[in-house]
């Protein structure tokens, strides 16, 4: 940089910037942009404000809880974040959009209007989407993320620096179904079971496929009964129903599992737990504090802990206490929130749901000899809550603005990726690194190994095109013949596409077999890939649960889970893995080495820093409130990859 940064005002005043995300980083960013002289700021955010955000999103107050971050409901005169900033910077223009950045309105033409795009996002999916639109529109992107004390800011300018996707990003962690249903060994397995299976089965959509119970040794014969067990009979006493569920899932199901001797040869045998063993025969728990339970107006305030007079979230409950919470939470769902039953999905801000899942996970953990956890910890695991503090967000926001200013001056030589570290590396807490050149292999032709006589087009669309390539509204062509298109499709084509989805690849109107080159495209993302199909007969159910393998695509890299052997059981209805992450806010643990092969600005050897970094096992880095961007625990692997 030739001159000093504060003299950039001319570049800043005329600049039109787009902020995506108004959360922890977003609030800080909006404030710092406004103070720095930016006067035309647009913000896209779809979220609402939660209590747990107030400790670091200083533009919001208790009275705003429940309102959208970018644009509150109509009763409030105006947009909260905007108003808060206009209080100290009147006269600048702030335009909020309460919407998902993936909405088709935010197309390439929309992005082209901006001089720079600044991300303060919390999930991989949206980051990839914005990255592609920025590439398509040729608009520079400044990307960011924080986790706890760690944070990072990176600059992505088409043709000049690598794009966000030139580096592999880890996929959300998943667990084999059998580990969850039959052989849990960690508390997180019990949480996933309680949340995705038991909670979903009892309180969620009954039509959803659910693996609860399919792993018993004679599932076929018991499946009839199983249906009856979970359905509450008309007029069935709620206490009786609760105990029946309890005995079934914590007692009977464990007994069934124990009968499969093979499973337990090299594992500790679980103990069945029945309600009569942990609770006295007397039904109806003491509703000590019912009077204090202001349940009527707001369903989310109903609490089994309050009802039982328990207060401290940091206490670990005994098995007996967990059992009482379990039964009380179930009772409250069926008496105070019965209208929601059948439509509930787990929400970390739903106290009763958290209580139910904590209790159920703990009882299961007790069965399997896994240490119990308190509600605060269980909530963190179940909700994939990422640690977040205001100070890191403030630092990262300052760094984003500095990079944005360099981008506006087109000062390419000065662009830096900056890492905010918890433990200094070579005395640095803030470590700048020169950006990489674009990765030439990003978006090169891909190949897909698949059994074209077994897999359906639907599988390809869901497991590869959407899940792996991250496309939203894909179009799939085999040479000139259109096999599938999502989104705004002509009416007469809908049934044809629907029918194609159900067809096996080799039986499509234009058959897809070994050697076929498929073209997959998403117009909105302006992303187009060619996929070379390779036919393969066999897939390892455990290691390749999708039944297909995409080659040449560098991300996301899935984080390998333990190598549990799956329990042999023909009755399995699904070999899918259960994503531990919430579908809406999937946190990803990215792996990015701040040090790999990059030249540190004006300083010499990186080796010491590398060594130091290795010592702090997992430097994880970053993302905004609800997620995580980077860090590093496998530097060697990365270096190899780059070489």
């Amino acid at each position: 940089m030739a001159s000093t940064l504060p003299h950039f005002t001319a570049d800043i005043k005329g600049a039109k910037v787009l902020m995506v995300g108004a959360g922890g980083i977003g609030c800080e960013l909006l404030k710092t942009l406004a103070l720095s002289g930016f006067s035309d700021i647009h913000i896209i955010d779809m979220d609402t404000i939660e209590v747990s955000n107030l400790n670091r999103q200083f533009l919001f107050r208790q009275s705003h809880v429940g309102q959208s971050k970018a644009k509150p409901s109509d009763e409030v005169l105006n947009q909260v974040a905007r108003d808060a900033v206009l209080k100290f910077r009147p006269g600048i223009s702030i335009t909020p959009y309460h919407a998902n950045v993936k909405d088709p309105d935010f197309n390439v033409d929309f992005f082209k209007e901006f001089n720079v795009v600044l991300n303060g996002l919390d999930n991989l999916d949206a980051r990839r989407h914005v990255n592609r639109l920025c590439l398509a529109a040729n608009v520079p992107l400044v990307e960011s993320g924080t986790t706890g004390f760690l944070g990072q800011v990176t600059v992505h300018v088409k043709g000049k620096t690598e794009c966000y996707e030139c580096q592999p990003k880890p996929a959300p962690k998943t667990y084999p179904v059998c580990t969850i249903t039959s052989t849990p060994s960690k508390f997180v397995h019990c949480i996933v079971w309680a949340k995705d299976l038991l909670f979903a089965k009892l309180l969620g959509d009954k039509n959803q496929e659910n693996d609860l119970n399919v792993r018993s040794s004679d599932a076929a014969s018991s499946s009839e009964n199983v249906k009856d067990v979970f359905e509450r009979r008309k007029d069935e006493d709620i206490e009786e129903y609760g105990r029946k569920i309890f005995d079934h899932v914590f007692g009977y199901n464990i007994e069934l599992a124990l009968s499969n001797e093979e499973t337990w040869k090299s594992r500790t045998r679980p103990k069945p737990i029945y309600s009569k063993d942990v609770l006295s025969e007397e039904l109806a728990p003491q509703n000590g504090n019912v009077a204090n339970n202001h349940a009527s107006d707001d369903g989310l305030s109903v609490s089994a802990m309050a009802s039982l007079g328990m207060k401290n979230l940091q206490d670990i409950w005994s098995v007996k206490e967990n059992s009482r919470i379990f039964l009380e939470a179930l009772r409250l769902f069926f008496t105070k929130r019965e209208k929601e039953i059948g439509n509930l999905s787990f929400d970390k801000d739903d106290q009763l749901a958290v209580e139910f899942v904590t209790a159920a996970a703990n009882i299961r953990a007790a069965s399997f000899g896994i240490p119990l956890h308190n509600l605060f910890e269980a909530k963190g695991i179940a909700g994939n809550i990422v640690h977040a503090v205001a100070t890191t967000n403030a630092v990262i926001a300052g760094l984003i603005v500095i990079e944005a200013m360099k981008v506006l001056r087109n000062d390419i030589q000065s662009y830096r990726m900056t890492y905010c570290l918890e433990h200094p590396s070579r005395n640095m807490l803030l470590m700048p690194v020169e950006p990489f050149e674009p990765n030439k292999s990003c978006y090169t032709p891909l190949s897909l190994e698949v059994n074209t006589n077994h897999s359906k087009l639907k599988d390809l669309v869901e497991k590869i095109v959407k899940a792996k390539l991250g496309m939203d509204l894909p179009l799939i062509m085999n040479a000139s013949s259109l096999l599938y298109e999502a989104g705004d499709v002509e009416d007469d084509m809908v049934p044809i596409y629907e029918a194609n989805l159900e067809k096996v690849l080799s039986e499509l109107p234009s058959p897809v077999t070994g050697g076929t080159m498929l073209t997959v495209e998403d117009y909105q993302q302006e992303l187009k890939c060619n996929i070379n199909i390779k036919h393969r007969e066999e897939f390892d159910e455990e290691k390749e649960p999708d039944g297909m393998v995409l080659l040449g695509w560098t991300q996301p890299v899935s984080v390998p889970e333990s190598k549990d052997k799956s329990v042999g059981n023909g009755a399995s209805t699904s070999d899918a893995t259960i994503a531990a992450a919430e579908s809406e806010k999937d946190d990803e643990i990215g792996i990015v080495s701040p040090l790999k092969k990059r030249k540190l600005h004006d300083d010499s050897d990186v080796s010491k820093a590398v060594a130091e970094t290795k010592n702090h096992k997992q430097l994880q880095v970053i993302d905004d409130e609800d997620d995580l961007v980077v860090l590093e625990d496998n530097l060697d692997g990365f270096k190899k990859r780059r070489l």
Partner: protein
Amino acid sequence: MDVDGEELTAQETALYDRQIRVWGADAQRRLSKAHVLVYGMKGTVAEFCKNIVLAGVGSLTLIDDRVATAEAFSSNFLIPPYENVYSGKTLAQLCCDSLKDFNPMVRVSVEKGHLSTFDVEFFAKFDVVVVSCCSLSAKKLVNEKCRTLSKRVAFYTVDCRDSCGEIFVDLQHYKYSKKKLDETVECNLQYPTFVEAISVPWRALQLRMSKLYFAMRVIEKYEEAEGRRVGEVSIADLPGVLKLKRELCTTQSLSESHVPDTLLERLVTNTTEFPPVCAIIGGILGQEVIKAISGKGDPIKNFFFFDALDGKGIIEDISDSNGGR
């Protein structure tokens, strides 16, 4: 600080959920009992105050009797830019009004007077003292007062000029714990005072010492010698500043290339704060104060420098024990 005692309330646990997951419930309890004093309400201190109010310190006391002017809100988002609101009020009062809003659980108040008028007993009320925009003599004085108390009062100075920032830390004799390979280990650090630190001969410092350290000392000395208020310099002062630099380098036997003229020129030309740097320095300082209160994690010992031009945020240890080369 009495750390045992009452548990966090449900309200506190809900509000501070995400950060308790970072530093733990015991650290949050210590925070809620800590009393912090700040002097000099400019942009960097405003950022710092926002951070610790959001984090949930027990109380925050502000001192700055200067009357607000249009210039005051250039990098301070706590001051409303309407003359009918700010006119007649002091900077501390205006910032106090805004900060109260951020977190109703924190007591924010104003103390009137100038730093030099407060006696030692006054400082005894606090666990942390942060001063900004202070003359060299005021920094020394407050640091000494904190040192004479029997209780440990953590002392910090913070200043930003152009796109550079500096933090100084004195935690006296400091014991803390940190995680090392899943184990918690106890650590000890002995800090020098501000006077002791800046008395370390320049030639005894490492060759790679941040150039900003020397430059800030030159400017500090210049303002003191000329009887200027902090930041009351301009490009017209550059010849005088460069002359002082040469004298100091000669006395200290330090090559003049360690204090680049271009850096000094930036620091005298642009004395207003640069908002992104305020956010960065205010964030780092907030984090350090939270660490010092909670007694968890390696603190900065004893200077931190950031320059937006090279983007590095560097910790330097400038103390006798570390001097020899």
